[in-house]
């Protein structure tokens, strides 16, 4: 290939016109029957595509709705789970002297399980005292 071939060579406009005229002399006209045959197939194809897509969309929405429902159920169960104060050892919904006793008994048995009320890193007598103090503390404004 020489340098000339690297250019996008042009043909004289008149000759291009002749070539196009030549091609159009033999132009094939597409009859309606061919249009109808192709377009009928196209409509069938696209209606099938739409049907498939609708089925897929319905399945997708069903799955999405099921997921949302499941999440709602799990979320609600988490929300509704009773929350206890750390000091409520017996989980009866209030902190009272029985909680202090319960922790004291646990410590007496040698276990170190329980709330670290003062945050000193160990569960001991001091934590029992804090729970006891909390249990006997009067609410503000009450006598």
């Amino acid at each position, binding site marked *: *290939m020489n340098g000339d*071939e690297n250019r996008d060579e042009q043909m004289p406009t008149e000759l291009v016109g002749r070539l196009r005229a*030549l*091609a159009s002399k033999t132009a*094939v*006209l*597409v009859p309606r029957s061919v249009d109808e045959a*192709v*377009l009928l197939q196209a409509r069938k194809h696209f209606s099938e595509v739409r049907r498939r897509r609708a089925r897929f969309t319905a399945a997708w929405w069903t799955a999405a709705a099921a997921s949302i429902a499941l999440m709602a159920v799990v979320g609600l169960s988490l929300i509704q789970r009773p929350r206890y104060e750390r000091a409520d050892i017996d989980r009866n919904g209030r902190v009272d002297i029985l909680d202090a006793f319960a922790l004291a008994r646990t410590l007496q048995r040698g276990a170190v399980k329980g709330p670290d009320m003062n945050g000193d890193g160990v569960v001991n007598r001091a934590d029992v005292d804090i729970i006891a103090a909390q249990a006997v503390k009067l609410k503000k404004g009450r006598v």
Partner: protein
Amino acid sequence: MAALEKDDSLARLAEDEDSRSDHELIAAANAGDAGAFEGLYFRYREWVANLAYRFIGDHALALDVVQETFLYFLQKFPGFVLTCQLKTFLYPAVRNLSIAARRKAQRAQGDAPLPETLEALPSTACSLDEVDGVLNGLSSEHREVLLLRFVDGLTMAEIAEALQIPVGTVKSRTHTALATLRADERTKKFFER
């Protein structure tokens, strides 16, 4: 009455050229819009028909190829991605389907098979004969490139993609074809004006 209405609606579809680009029509067709595919069909059916005729040289077979080409194209939806010109995409399909149609017709007629090349453009009894004569003197590869470039208006890169050959080969064939036209007494005058 119903047939008439159908004819009218087809005529309207054909006349109302869709103003959307090929890419827009393809996106709409991918979304399930049959009308967008119809727009593409009406935009390219004549080109496909004429291209098929160039390969086969028979009107009826060319029309069969039109149907087969668009049915092949239809199966690409949804999910069709156009990475080039639509002509570039359709060209190999038209070419292969034309060759297959021609083979089938030859088998049916019991003739000796023709080579798998572009048919010579049918001669016309007018002043175009001189161009026609020179063109038919070119090899099918050179004629094919020349027609794609100057009649169909494809770029060198698009022709290379359509024919699945290197751009350099397209340029070389174009150069050779033009050199032939330039040297031939019947077409030399066009280059001298």
